[in-house]
C-alpha cells in the first residue's frame, strides 16, 4: 500500500517565529527552535520530519512564505 512521506525546509532567516505553521500542522512535525536567527526570532523547524505528510498546510498559512514542502509516495 502506498504511503505518503513529506518533509519541509524552512528559510530560517526569513522566518519571524509567529508559530502559525506549528498551530496548523496536523501531525506535530513542527517545533520552534531554541536558537534565534539574525533578526532574533525563534524559527520553525521540522522537529519530527518522520511525521510529515507533505500536506503543505504550514506553508500555505505561513505569512512570509518561508516554508518549502516536499512529498513522495513510497
Amino acid at each position, binding site marked *: 500500500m502506498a504511503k505518503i512521506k513529506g518533509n519541509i525546509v524552512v*528559510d530560517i532567516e526569513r522566518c519571524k517565529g509567529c508559530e502559525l505553521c506549528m498551530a496548523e500542522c496536523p501531525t506535530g512535525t513542527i517545533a520552534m527552535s531554541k536558537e534565534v536567527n539574525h533578526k532574533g*526570532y525563534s524559527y520553525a523547524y521540522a522537529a519530527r520530519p518522520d511525521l510529515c505528510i507533505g500536506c503543505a498546510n504550514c506553508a500555505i*498559512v505561513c505569512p512570509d512564505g518561508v516554508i518549502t*514542502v516536499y512529498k513522495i509516495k513510497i
Partner: protein
Amino acid sequence: MNDTNQMNDIIKPGNIVYKRTDLMTDDILHYCPGCGHSTVHRIIAEIIDEEGIQSETIGISPVGCSVYLYNYIDIDCQEAAHGRAPALATAIKRLMPDKYVFTYQGDGDLAAIGTAETIHACNRGENILIVFINNGIYGMTGGQMAPTTIPGMKSSTSPYGRDVEMMGNLIKMTDIVATLPGTYFVTRQSVHSAVNVRRTKKAIRKAFHYQKLKKGTCFVEVVSNCPSNWKMTPVESNKWMEENMFPYYPLGDLKDPEKQQEK
C-alpha cells in the same frame, strides 16, 4: 540513520509540492510576525504567477501598513493617497481596459477616508478588484480605532473599549457594496488557517476571472488580525478574531451571481 537519509531523499526539486512564488520579490516583508497582510500579498502574487498575467496587471497600494505592497510583488504598481485607490483604479482601467487592475486597501483607507471613492467605484461597476483587509484597527499609525473596530474593542483612541454611543457604530462596507448594482462578486474571507487561505485564494482568482469577463466590480474582504496592536501573539490573535470578529463579520459570499445560477 537510515530514516534521516530517507528524509533527506525527499528534499529534491522534483518532490516540491509548495514553494514561495518567484513573483514575490526577495525583500523581507516588513509586516509584524503572523500578520495576514503578508499572506494576502502572497496569495495575490501566486494567482498572478499561476495565471501568467504579470505583464497585464497593475496593482494599487494604499496608505497604511500595506503601502509598500509594491516592494513585494513583482508587478507594476501605483501608490495612492489615503483612501483614493479606487479613483486611481477607475482611470487606469478605463484607459487600459484590457489590463487587470486591483486595489489593496485597509479598513481605515477603504472604510473611513476613502468611503466615497469605494462606494462610487463599486456603484459605477468599475471592472476592478478591490481587496479589503479588515483588522478593525489602524495598524501603521499605532493601533487607533478604525470604522470597523468592534464594540468594546480596545484601541489607542478607544482605550476603554469602543463606546458605540460616543464613538459610533462599526461599518460593514462589504455588506454595503453588496447592495450596489455595480458589484458582481462580493465575498468575505480570512487567511488565519490553511483552509481559509485556500478559500481566499479561490475567491481572488475568481475575481480576476470575472474582471476578464468585464462583469463589474469584485470586492474581496479579508477579515484579518493585527497581533501587535491587538497586543496578542499571532496564534492568540487568530483565535480572538474567530471568537470576536467573525460574529460581526461572518465569512462567506455575499454576492456571486454565478453561484446563484448553479442553485
